[in-house]
């Protein structure tokens, strides 16, 4: 237990959802099981505009939804937040549990420096105000996987507050347009994670694993709806959402459910709900229906957490004993928004492409490595990395690091394409061969499969001549002025050359022959 957790609270943001026909699912009546992409886009946190300016149809009420997220993210550290025991993914149950983690009487928490640094870094990255003094509190509740009967968290005075995160959403009919948005971050707090309960319904037993260190991201979403200009509605909390997709679905569903409930004369209860992944709906968590009073109390075993900056650093302080905010700021890596901006500037990339490159772990690095080794245009490289390469990865559910195609191989392939040694369809064929991991270079594949473009103009002219001779009707069509007919001839010539000819060259020859 006690894996270090960072908890972010995103301040409730509100957006208007208009009840209009067609474009919106927020009609009167019961929510349907599925929601359209349009609505998911609107209500999910990453993409929802603060105010969608849709005009309500006359006589219909406008609804606004308010969503606040509590995001639990595990800190990547070697040991736990308050004990020296390790954090390791998929370790055997209860194999990384110190006496403190098991809450043996008399044990005391000792704060992990690395976790504090990570929290400060996160706070800086999210434009937060870093509190130079923060406090720890105990939050009490009885649960089998909470062996101390309380969780150590930062309730009163957290380590960072008042931040913001800017992001972009694709919008408009073309979807090519990225609209910048901002979400406010209320606070970031260091928090001990509770244990994991494994319910064995068959034997009606619950097994407890106090290792922690799994479930790297967990989100609780607080949702309410109201009419703009009126007081906020009663909120519900959807607990334990563990993927962005389910988070979006749960919020969508919950907004619709609440609107529908209210429009049908019902009321919203302040309750905890869970998201049923298979049914795509939220359900009330009956066992937690009774309102919890967490009886917060200061954690007496941890002194206030004091942080320093260059101006407040006590002279002669042991660097091992103090944490310097300015020093951490210097070690901040380039933030995603800056990287995206750089990609757009440097490569003339579309903003939405810069988002995709950054959203996939390792993809940016892959792209940059290809760029280093190829003569191909950035636009071409972007297109290949985002369409073909990413497409293959997604199809096989692989991470970038698991890719069978190396950046060097793709770079070589793109060079062959760039030098017009092969056609773009041949290039796709080569890529498919590369994906088979047979250890061949693109050059080898091209020569083995004879995929080079025909460089012999005389031979190509011969192919064109034969095709025209065999298809007099099509030739007639061209001559009659049908602009598409020439494409048919090009296709026939390409087929005759086993796709080894450059369509542009074919077109040029055909046009010359037709006009002669």
């Amino acid at each position, binding site marked *: 237990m006690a894996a270090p957790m960072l908890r972010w609270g995103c301040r409730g943001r509100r957006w208007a959802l208009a009840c209009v026909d067609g474009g919106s699912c927020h009609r009167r009546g019961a929510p349907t099981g599925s929601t359209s992409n349009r609505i998911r886009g609107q209500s999910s946190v990453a993409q929802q505009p603060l105010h969608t300016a849709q005009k309500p149809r006359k006589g219909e009420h406008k609804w606004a939804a308010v969503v606040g997220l509590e995001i639990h993210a595990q800190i990547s550290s070697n040991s736990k937040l308050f004990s020296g025991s390790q954090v390791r993914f998929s370790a055997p149950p209860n194999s990384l549990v110190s006496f403190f983690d098991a809450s043996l*009487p*008399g044990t005391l928490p*000792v704060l992990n420096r690395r976790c504090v640094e990570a929290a400060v870094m996160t706070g800086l990255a999210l434009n937060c105000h870093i509190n130079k003094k923060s406090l720890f509190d105990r939050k*009490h509740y*009885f649960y*089998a996987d909470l062996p101390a009967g309380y969780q150590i968290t930062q309730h009163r005075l957290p380590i960072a507050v008042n931040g913001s995160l800017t992001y972009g959403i694709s919008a408009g009919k073309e979807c090519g347009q990225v609209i910048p948005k901002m979400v406010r971050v209320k606070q970031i707090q260091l928090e001990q994670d509770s244990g994991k309960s494994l319910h064995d319904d068959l034997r009606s037993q619950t097994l407890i694993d106090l290792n922690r260190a799994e479930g790297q991201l967990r989100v609780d979403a607080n949702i309410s709806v109201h009419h703009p200009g009126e007081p906020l509605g009663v909120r519900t909390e959807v607990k334990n959402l563990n993927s962005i997709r389910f988070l979006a679905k749960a919020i969508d569903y919950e907004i619709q459910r609440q609107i529908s409930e209210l429009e049908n004369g019902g009321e919203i209860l302040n309750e905890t709900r869970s998201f049923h992944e298979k049914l795509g709906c939220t359900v009330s968590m009956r066992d937690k229906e009774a309102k919890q009073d967490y009886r917060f*109390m200061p954690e007496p*075993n941890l002194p206030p957490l004091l942080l320093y900056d260059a101006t407040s650093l006590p002279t002669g302080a042991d660097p091992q004993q103090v944490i310097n905010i300015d020093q951490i700021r210097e070690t901040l890596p380039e933030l995603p928004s800056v990287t995206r901006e750089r990609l757009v500037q440097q490569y003339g990339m579309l903003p939405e492409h810069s988002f995709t490159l950054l959203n996939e772990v390792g993809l940016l690095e892959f792209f940059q490595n290809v760029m280093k080794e190829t003569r191909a245009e950035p636009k071409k490289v972007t297109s290949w990395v985002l369409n073909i390469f990413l497409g293959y990865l997604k199809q096989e559910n692989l991470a970038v690091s698991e890719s069978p195609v190396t950046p060097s191989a793709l770079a070589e392939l793109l060079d062959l394409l760039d030098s017009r040694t092969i056609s773009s369809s041949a290039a796709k064929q080569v890529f498919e061969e590369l994906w088979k991991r047979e250890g061949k270079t693109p050059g080898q594949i091209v020569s083995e499969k004879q995929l080079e473009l025909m460089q012999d103009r005389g031979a190509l002219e011969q192919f064109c001549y034969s095709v025209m001779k065999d298809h007099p009707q099509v030739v007639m069509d061209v001559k009659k002025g049908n602009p598409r007919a020439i494409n048919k001839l090009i296709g026939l010539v390409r087929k005759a050359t086993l796709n080894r000819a450059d369509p542009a060259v074919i077109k040029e020859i055909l046009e010359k022959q037709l006009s002669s």
Partner: protein
Amino acid sequence: MLGLISPGQNGQITPTELCQKCLSLIKKTKFLNAYITVSEEVALKQAEESEKRYKNGQSLGDLDGIPIAVKDNFSTSGIETTCASNMLKGYVPPYNATVVQKLLDQGALLMGKTNLDEFAMGSGSTDGVFGPVKNPWSYSKQYREKRKQNPHSESGDSDWLITGGSSGGSAAAVSAFTCYAALGSDTGGSTRNPAAHCGLVGFKPSYGLVSRHGLIPLVNSMDVPGILTRYVDDAAIVLGVLAGHDPKDSTTVPINKPLVLSSLEDVSKLCIGIPKEYLVPELSSEIQCLWSRAADLFESEGAKVIEVSLPHTSYSIVCYHVLCTSEVASNMARFDGLQYGHRCDIDVSTEAMYAATRREGFNDVVRGRILSGNFFLLKENYENYFVKAQKVRRLIANDFVNAFNSGVDVLLTPTTLSEAVPYLEFIKEDNRTRSAQDDIFTQAVNMAGLPAVNIPIALSNQGLPIGLQFIGRAFCDQQLLTVAKWFEKQVQFPVIQLQELVDNCSAILENEKLASVSLKQ
């Protein structure tokens, strides 16, 4: 009269012989109920190792081969640690509390784990699951002779006296010569109170000076390991071993120089403060008189004695009650029957199991405090009780700061309202009432985190010990003990005479200062 004898006067003794003497005394005084667990085998083995070290001339220091006892709320690796509660019966910790480890590292012999009020909640050592502790002074020659003179006193054992508490087992263990020093814990006076009733030095160090790691908590923000010895010098030796930063307790501070107790020859530069609010109507006239005489003593020797005011004193006990029970409610939450300790047989639901386990595991006192504490921590009550109590706590701490800033070096107060009372008298009032009475002079010190020590001053008309409390500035423990040592030397408190009880067996231990125990090489 102080009992200082030259080393080796009674002949030199080996650690094993000394250990066996103490073990035999523990058996003879078993009826005192001072020990919950006697770790005979462990102690003998440690004695054997100590003996080897002495033979090789590799003694580890003052504590090598010295029998000690530890209150049963300090975790001891491999030795049952119960807190005198059903909840922890059979619980054997896998680790040593830092203070225990430090004593063992110095070669001390662990004789056993001493009795207490359940989870240290009490002031009589009467409310533990293993029964009350009897005060060795009930059987002293001094007390028996006085009783004979009183025609109304009953004969027999029925009016034995309480030790005070909650570290009564540790106090009885030292008082009955079964060990030289014992660890107590002090949250509101639990070390100083039984020390006063048993005629011992009971020292509560500054909060943060001694590690709490391994001490099963009562109130984390006030708990401090306490030291019970017969003499101030001995307490200082033990403190010297225990004090210092512990990486496992983030509230401890580093100490820059070792603790050395010098003899104070001249008190003329000393300023003793007498807090006027500590003169309460409930204070026994005998103690009041001794308190006044002690002040006179300082004055006659040249010290400046002034009256000081600690204006928030009267709010202290109720404030202590709110903060104490709140932390208790929190600290006791881990005892749910799942990981360790008692678990009931009920398995209809987890909640039912929790409820029954806690009902069976905790006594009424513990359950009552958990209930109060949870009430104070409720969202609707938190501001009105907990936060308010914290503010009052700050005012109380500031009272002390102001007194010390006015030039006072040490405060002198009574430790208890009266001498030890008979058990049958004591249990006429409930635990809460008794704690409120008995902690009256002691708990404010815990709220302020200051060092304080009980020094026995004289015997009452009944032949029972009376002690006074010295309170020092935060982290000025050494100065405090230096003054206490001077006072100890002046008052020449008599040694308990238990010859009848233990057949001269204690002759070798009696009058023996830990510092002057002469172990055979």
